[in-house]
């Protein structure tokens, strides 16, 4: 028999659910383009998945160097040690960065391994890139939407529906100072590394330019640097150590929490559905927006509040099994009601109602 437990059993408290994916019907964003690119859509046109929207001219990245690793400079001071200028054509053996050490007795030099063009667009993150030949790529739409404007300042402004996922913390928020910084958005294709549950120290040998990479359950700093060496625009992880997060200086978003916490298979699976979507990391909102109407999550309108405790999905906030998802299968009343929960790992237990977060998956 299905038992309905009404709100009065919530210890006289109303509980709001956190929607893991929030759907926004009218999400407006813009795709920046440069003067070399060719825009293939017009203001007012409707775009569908697979339509060409932009012909982008880019130079492939031949080499990336992380200067803090190469010559031991702090990330924020990397610019000071660069021995060439942005866009300069360098030949093999040219000194591209150098740093005097040991009180002037020694000099660490970084030499260019081949001919190429210097790109300092990521120098603030500590990266110096050497570009190779120019390639032209057709950027195809991975969403359905309406082009509301096209101009060189805002880029291609698109209105579309989107699903948002909360990012608990974004590392770079520390360094943002102006309003413009806070409005920062990172664009790219959402990709997964491995199956999302493995602990990886090195990324696959792929090009991660213009990609937002989800690394899975835990991010090690070795993997983070490897991904940025391979051009990643932004790295997302379910968890990582807070100190690493604070000190690494690269754009990282944490979705689940800090430390070695339990990683929910259900949430990883929900994120997996977003692979290949065009995604936007919005610093101000601390959310990642997925434009993937084709992969609609089939959400039913459940409302914001918890109406029945039994069968609700919860996430544990207790240190004992922090982050684990479970389904409520009973309630023990009292001053502080306890929930009987069937956890994701198939074990059953009880937990204080004030020590959980109610979710809508």
């Amino acid at each position, binding site marked *: 028999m299905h038992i309905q437990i*009404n*709100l*009065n059993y*919530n210890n*006289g*408290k*109303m*509980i*709001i*659910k*956190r929607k893991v994916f*929030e759907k*926004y019907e009218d999400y407006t964003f813009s795709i920046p383009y440069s003067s070399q690119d060719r825009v293939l859509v017009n203001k007012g046109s409707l775009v569908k998945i697979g339509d060409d929207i932009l012909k982008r001219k880019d130079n492939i990245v031949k080499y990336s160097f992380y200067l803090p690793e190469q010559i031991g400079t702090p990330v924020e001071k990397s610019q000071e040690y660069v021995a060439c200028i942005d866009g300069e054509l360098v030949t093999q053996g040219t000194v591209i960065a150098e740093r005097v050490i040991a009180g002037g007795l020694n000099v660490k030099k970084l030499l260019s391994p081949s001919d190429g063009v210097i790109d300092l667009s990521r120098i603030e993150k500590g990266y110096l890139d050497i570009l190779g030949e120019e390639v032209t790529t057709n950027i195809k739409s991975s969403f359905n939407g309406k082009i509301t404007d096209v101009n060189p300042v805002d880029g291609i402004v698109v209105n579309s529906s989107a699903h*948002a996922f*909360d990012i*608990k*913390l974004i590392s770079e*928020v*520390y360094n943002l100072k102006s309003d413009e910084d806070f409005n920062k958005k990172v664009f790219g294709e959402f990709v997964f590394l491995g199956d999302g549950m493995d602990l990886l120290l090195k990324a696959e040998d792929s090009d991660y330019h213009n990609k937002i990479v989800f690394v899975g359950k835990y991010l090690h700093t070795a993997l983070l640097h490897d991904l940025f060496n391979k051009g990643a625009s932004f790295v997302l992880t379910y968890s990582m*150590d*807070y*100190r690493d997060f*604070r000190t690494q200086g690269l754009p990282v978003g944490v979705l689940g*929490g*800090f*430390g070695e*916490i339990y990683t929910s298979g259900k949430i990883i699976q929900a994120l997996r559905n977003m692979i290949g979507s065009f995604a936007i990391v919005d610093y101000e*909102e*601390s*959310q990642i927006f997925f434009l993937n109407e084709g992969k609609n999550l089939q959400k039913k309108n459940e*409302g*914001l*509040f918890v109406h029945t405790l039994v069968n609700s999905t919860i996430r544990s*906030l*207790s*240190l004992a099994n*922090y982050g684990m998802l479970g389904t409520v299968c009973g309630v023990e009343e009292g001053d*502080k009601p306890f929930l009987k929960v069937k956890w994701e790992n198939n074990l059953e237990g009880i937990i*204080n109602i*004030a*020590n959980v*977060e*109610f979710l809508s998956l």
Partner: protein
Amino acid sequence: MSKLSIFEKNAYISIVIKDNGIWTHLAYTDHNASREYILSDYTDLNSLRYRLDDMIFTKEFWFEYFNNLEKIFSWNIVDKNSFAIFTFRKFKEEGDGINGIRIAIDDNQHFFDKIFQSIRDFSNDLSLRVINDAYMQSLIESLADRLGYDDLLYVDMDLYDFSLYRTTNIYQKNNSVKKLFSKSKLGWNSDLSVIDSINDKRFEAFLANDLSDREITNYWSNFILDRPLDISKEVSLLDLVRAYATIQNFSILRDNRQKLEQFGNIYQKTAMIISGYIPNLLGKYTTLLALTDGLELSGEIDCFFDNELRMLSFGKSYTYGINSTDIILTKKDIIPHITKLLIPNSVKETNKIMFAGYAESVEIPRTEFFVLSPKFSMISLPPHREKLIVNGSWRNGARINNAKNEISFISTPESSYYDSIVVDARPRPIIYGPDAYSNKLKLQQWKDDNKA
């Protein structure tokens, strides 16, 4: 609104939005039948913290909120017509309708403007207030007068903001009374700054757990981001929050020493109203320990724990008495039970009785209690329906400056109900450190839960 007769039946809703939470109280009175009660609800908005500024948090939210509130309180509050337009039901009888709704929003609440606007869009029948310094000044000055205290400190300990408001009576030569108001605040503007605040070396000095630095920062950051409503079983988190509360209070004292000094030592009638997220987590004993050490308190202080924000919600209505224009409430549903905090200025010896006393009433036989040094001791007074007389005296050189050696007070169930006494019998000065292990031993030594 017309002035209500004190005998009229009445139902009134007061809502406070503060620290990402909504406190709602529905007060009902029928003074003819001596019937008066308050129904309360708390809704945590932390799940919506990314949505408070966008289109998800709009008037639709309030439609859904009041719809659910009806079920929680089993009270007909709203009418919805065929166009889905809400109107508040006029008060008819107990359980049906209300005479008014007041919503007060803390000016520290994130996305204050957006929340304010969403309420305005929802209904014009609501009375809107802003909880700011002027509001707090007027509230605590009137509460001090009504409750009969010469010195009143309102301590609000939320995760991001610690605010202290103090009102002190200054007696003039011509027998007139001047009120001196002061405020002291400390706030963090983001999750990151609260998380990083524990990197302060002084924070380490107050810690008393065995966690590694990595565990501390990971547990603390998860705690700040999730903001659970109960951590009573998480000993290490409780210790982090206690240390955080102590250092926050200590920082406020350091920056505002002139405003806070001598609190508890000027007048015998001194009180502290304690509210916020942190006291709800820590409980009375640990909160008072954090306040005593953080604010370097001493003296005799009546402590009111306003855990459900009833004093903040209905404090003004209570102080207006029969002149109130919304609802006439008596003390018993608004004013929480009192904890008497006794902190001598000097205690030198250890393992000796520093305070001894007894409690008795017509229904309860004389029950004695005593406090040994170096304990920070909480004595729960027996539940009582008749007046309970409590007498005690300082021993072995312990005493409060400029005060009598004897402490005596009466707990009156209908008006001033004392449920506990906390006596700080630790030798002065109180020293924390040099490391977490030493603190752990000291806290174990200090802890002593007596029951009278």
